[in-house]
């Protein structure tokens, strides 16, 4: 069981990293989601996989016997909810970004970088090229 989980995590991380390193923005986000699933599996496996018994104290007893560890399940649930929220946000962001930038290639996404026509050194001649980015009319 442990070996199966370990291999599953291995393949999930591999797939997630491969997708996350892609130039395609959509693949990149999906890759992060897959990596998130791998992180959840790690968290789940941290509670050990040996006992299938539910974490309920039998009536009459006051302590829990040999039951599964319930804490990692609570942690995984928290992480899933957070990961889901972030995935939703990133998909909406992606749609907006791909629509506005008219590209899904991360190499072409240089809008937050200095202008390509800005000869950073020596100082630009202030009169004949607008090196302010974003252009000044957009700042208003």
């Amino acid at each position, binding site marked *: 069981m442990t070996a199966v989980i370990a291999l599953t995590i291995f393949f999930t991380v591999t797939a997630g990293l491969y997708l996350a390193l892609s130039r395609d923005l959509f693949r990149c986000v999906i890759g*992060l989601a897959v990596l998130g699933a791998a992180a959840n599996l790690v968290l789940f496996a941290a*509670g050990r996989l040996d006992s299938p018994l539910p974490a309920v104290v039998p009536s009459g007893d006051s302590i829990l016997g040999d039951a599964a560890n319930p804490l990692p399940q609570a942690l995984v649930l928290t992480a899933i909810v957070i990961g889901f*929220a972030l995935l939703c*946000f990133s998909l909406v962001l992606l749609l907006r970004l791909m629509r506005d930038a008219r590209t899904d290639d991360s190499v072409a996404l240089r809008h937050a970088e200095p202008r390509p026509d800005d000869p950073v*050194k020596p100082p630009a001649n202030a009169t004949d090229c607008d090196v*302010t980015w*974003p252009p000044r009319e957009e700042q208003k």
Partner: protein
Amino acid sequence: MSALVVTPVLVPLATVVLTTLTNRRPALQQALSLAGVLAFLACAVALVFLAAADQPARTAFGSWVAPYGIEFHLDRIGASLVLITALMGTASLLFLASDADPGPRHPLLLPLVHGVLAGVGGAFSTADLFNLYVWFEVMLICALGLFALGGRLDQLDATFKYLVLNLLGTLLLLIAVGAIYGATGHLNFGALSAAASGMPPALATVLLAALLLAFLIKAGSFPVYAWLPASYHTLPAPILALFAGLLTKVGVYAVLRIVGDVFAPAPGIIMEALGWIAAATMMLGVLGAAYHWDMRRILAFHIVSQIGYILLAVALASEAGNAATLFYTLHHIIVKANLFLIAAMIWRLTGSYDLRRIGGLYKLRPLLGVLFLVPALSLVGIPPLSGFWAKLIVLQEALAQGRYAWTAVALAVSVLTLYSMVKIWMQAFWKTHPDTKWQLPSNTRLGPAWAATLGLAALTLTISINPEPLLDYAQAAARMLGG
């Protein structure tokens, strides 16, 4: 007492709810937001007094005993950082009322700002590793909202880069937390600290390295700082100042808490690596800053550079080093936020952040020129400003431990920082404006901006003239660590 311990989270979260409910009535929303941040400030002051009187506020939720319940514990370090968080929140919300690059007035702007404050406050208060992860996520999602709020193409681009690189850090953090729980069976800082000594050294080193890498991504240190200069400059000025002051410092605080407190003494190889990472961080940050001409980009690279100094203090792994870390962090947050705010005022008066397109400000606004010099020279470390004391105690300890290489790098970086600050001052204030027809704009509303920046500069000067109380506080805080 136990009511006060939750205020760093509860007060900003309540403000989030109130400002969201009133988002159709801007005046009321503004008033509630200010009231919320002032209440936060008052609670933070009370928490610092409690911590300084050796009665730190602490509670375990649900009245579960220590290793099981999630614990909040505001010792001297946590309480002082919560106080500085509240101060920064107040300064940037005040600055938001001016017209110096405040960005568009979106109804969700104020709720998201308070959401960031709640996340930062929670991260400084918690004594539980998984809970710390949750506060990092709260910070991340609110910060993403603030990045994307403007909706400009460069902002969306920056949001995406910030999202991808920070999400990788968060996932690594989650995996490391899971692995540490698997190895020790604990998440509470106190219980982890007790369990850490029983861990096999090799396992402890690997797990600690994974956890620290995640925090270093959040802190913006070499070689994982690429998200910071790629995104920060697209933010509106007050938000930028808030982020620059607080977000990376939460990562640094987490590093200090983990290696200086919970897992102290950390394995030697980790501290050695951290020291070299710190040296590389400060050097590459300042070199990046030297290349640029946009004030926001220059200052964003200086965040990276200064993170290096703070990490160096952590890497010294001694009581004096930990005290220096706290002192440096508190001084740095004030100075850094102030620099960004003053840059925004320069933008309002001259019309550009690009140093090549502005100038001549000293003749018309000499007070602004002097005001800029206070945080700028403090960042460099010119005596007697606060940055001098901060660097002095870090480098004294580095020399005392025989770390000559790190000291040499730190001193060289100070000279390069001076170059950067002098560059901004000469270009923005001293040289004549390249556009001969340029005039000061007449319809500015800079009153709140002056109030915020003068207030922060007054704080810096107070620390500069009388560093003794803060130094004593930091040393007392460091004595409580690791025990």
